[in-house]
């Protein structure tokens, strides 16, 4: 799958480029821990993140969003695929960017603000840990911790010596952001970073994130299941379904005229503020199928109202939208010449 297909703008190297990333988790059990099945958590996912943009990743629970995030920072090792950072492939060897180096440039904020802070360390030690690991002298790291804590809106004098259990959820998440920013990364992977917060606190943290992005020239990979939040923060949106990218494109295009039936269903599930425009029917019925032995062909065909024989048989590739709006869709229905009866006529057909 080439870069162009992915809807990336031409010119310049993307900050992060992911190609055919794959992670299957074995399901073991029974006698002698035999492998019974595989969970296809992330299956041939490709995307790019431009410097300075915010790429939102949305999808239902279990669609592989968080696994993708963890794969990017090599917290789990991918089964296949390539990750390039600043044009260089991650790994050891000439012309490559070592993992340790990647972790200077990319940081992650986790969803659970509680378990992502060590309960035995003070806020100061937590934030200063990263810089110290990367060789910053202790005194300087502590000074930076104070500085960065102020930047995320917590008074260093009040909070620097506290322990995580003395903070509220919103404060803890601010500390998590401070911890991630302490080693001065370029890319911040926010894995459901605001999902566990109250709406008002969530809004505060989102505003903080957009301020920080401007101040430190950050690039965000924003993972969330909240479509409103994603619309608010993202420049581009990537929709995942059962470990696959189904659609990716600029946020306004995606939200105005979603193409993939799954994206359409997702967006129509967004509650409207206008009572006259209330969604009457449930846009999607049932739970997503299990990522263990996912459906053949297009993984969405079991729930898709437009499914045809071709959807069961062949997996739709992610192809650039004909309207050339910087968007790519993986659906036979909208791909010319795909064999779907309702597909638009292809250039050769």
């Amino acid at each position, binding site marked *: 799958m080439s870069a162009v297909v992915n809807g990336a703008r031409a010119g310049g190297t993307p900050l992060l480029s992911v190609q055919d990333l794959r992670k299957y988790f074995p399901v073991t059990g029974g006698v002698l821990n035999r492998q019974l099945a595989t969970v296809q958590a992330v299956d041939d996912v490709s995307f790019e993140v431009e410097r300075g943009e915010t790429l939102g990743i949305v999808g239902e629970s279990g669609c592989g969003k968080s696994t993708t995030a963890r794969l990017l920072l090599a917290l789990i090792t991918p089964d296949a695929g390539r990750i390039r950072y600043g044009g260089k492939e991650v790994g050891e060897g000439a012309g490559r960017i070592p993992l340790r180096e990647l972790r200077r440039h990319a940081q*992650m904020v986790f969803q659970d603000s509680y378990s*992502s802070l060590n309960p035995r360390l003070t806020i100061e030690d937590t934030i200063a840990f990263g810089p110290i690991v990367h060789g910053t002298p202790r005194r300087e790291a502590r000074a930076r911790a104070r500085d960065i804590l102020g930047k995320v809106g917590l008074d260093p004098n009040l909070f620097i010596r506290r322990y995580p259990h003395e903070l509220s959820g919103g404060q803890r998440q601010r500390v998590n952001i401070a911890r991630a920013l302490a080693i001065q990364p370029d890319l911040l992977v926010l894995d459901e970073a605001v999902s566990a917060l109250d709406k008002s606190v969530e809004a505060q943290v989102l505003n903080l994130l957009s301020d920080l992005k401007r101040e430190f020239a950050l690039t965000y990979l924003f993972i969330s299941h909240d479509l409103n939040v994603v619309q608010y923060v993202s420049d581009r949106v990537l929709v995942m379904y059962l470990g696959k990218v189904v659609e990716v494109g600029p946020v306004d295009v995606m939200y105005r005229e979603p193409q993939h039936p799954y994206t359409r269903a997702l967006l129509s599930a967004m509650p409207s503020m206008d009572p006259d425009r209330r969604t009457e029917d449930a846009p999607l019925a049932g739970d997503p199928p299990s990522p263990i032995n996912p459906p053949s062909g297009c993984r969405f065909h079991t729930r898709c109202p437009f499914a045809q024989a071709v959807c069961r048989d062949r997996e739709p590739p992610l192809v650039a939208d004909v309207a050339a709006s910087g968007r790519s869709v993986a659906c036979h229905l909208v791909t010319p010449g795909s064999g779907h009866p309702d597909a638009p006529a292809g250039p050769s057909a």
Partner: protein
Amino acid sequence: MSQATETSAAMVDAAQVAAQSRGYWKTVWLRLRGDKVTIACFVVLALIVLSAVLADWLAPADPYKTSMLKRLKPIGTEGFPLGTDELGRDMLSRLLHGGRLSLFMGIVPVVYALVIGGALGLVAGFLGGRVNMLIMRTIDVLYAFPSVLLAVAISGSLGAGVTNAIVSLTVVFVPPIARVTESVTTQVRSLDFVDAARASGAGTFTIIRVHVLSNVLGPVFIYATSLISVSIILAAGLSFLGLGTEPPHPEWGLMLNTLRQSIYVSPWVAALPGVMIFFTSLSFNLMSDGLRSAMDVRL
């Protein structure tokens, strides 16, 4: 005026910090302070340890000096406040001196086992997978034997003596400590802050040192204190069977053994070493229970 307000504001801030910024150990101490049983046990243990350490000065007589004339004097005899044993040695002096060996035999094997078992459990728990399997299944083999039997078997094959008794007791305590450490480590390892530390670029060793140890050490340490009482009893048992301390050294278990024959003549004196073992192990147990509940702070 404004300066004064600022100063007072700063003072309020400082007071707030002092009041709110209670660390983990401070919280534990505050909870512990209200627990009278634990405090009492701690005091008893402190007294026992102190009396054992200062036995040379506290003991009224030489614990090795025998006297055929003054055998098996009852408690309260002139010059022998706790009576004499079957060889006419002063019981009080022997109990004080015996505390040294008994406590030594109680604490040292547990400390050794804490180092060995803790390291094994930490490695098994943190690395998981095949390493975990290899270490923990090996540990399980040792676990299959009853602890007394294992201690007796190892001591028996190595021969009598304090060193061999310590070796056998250490072997007995490595499996339970390794297992507890492994389970706590496995829990801690799956928490996000470990992933966050790894994402910060920290190596495995640094993560274990800074993030895992601080969370694992507490519960494992508490568990180890509860093993001290078991160790004292097992050591006493080994001595009783003639596999631990050799006479004429005073040790509570051995004293119990040698006084056994005199139990009909002088039952109260014969029971004294047992009373000491009882109080020491009970105190260790209750203290460890108290510590456990005090340290179980839901942070």
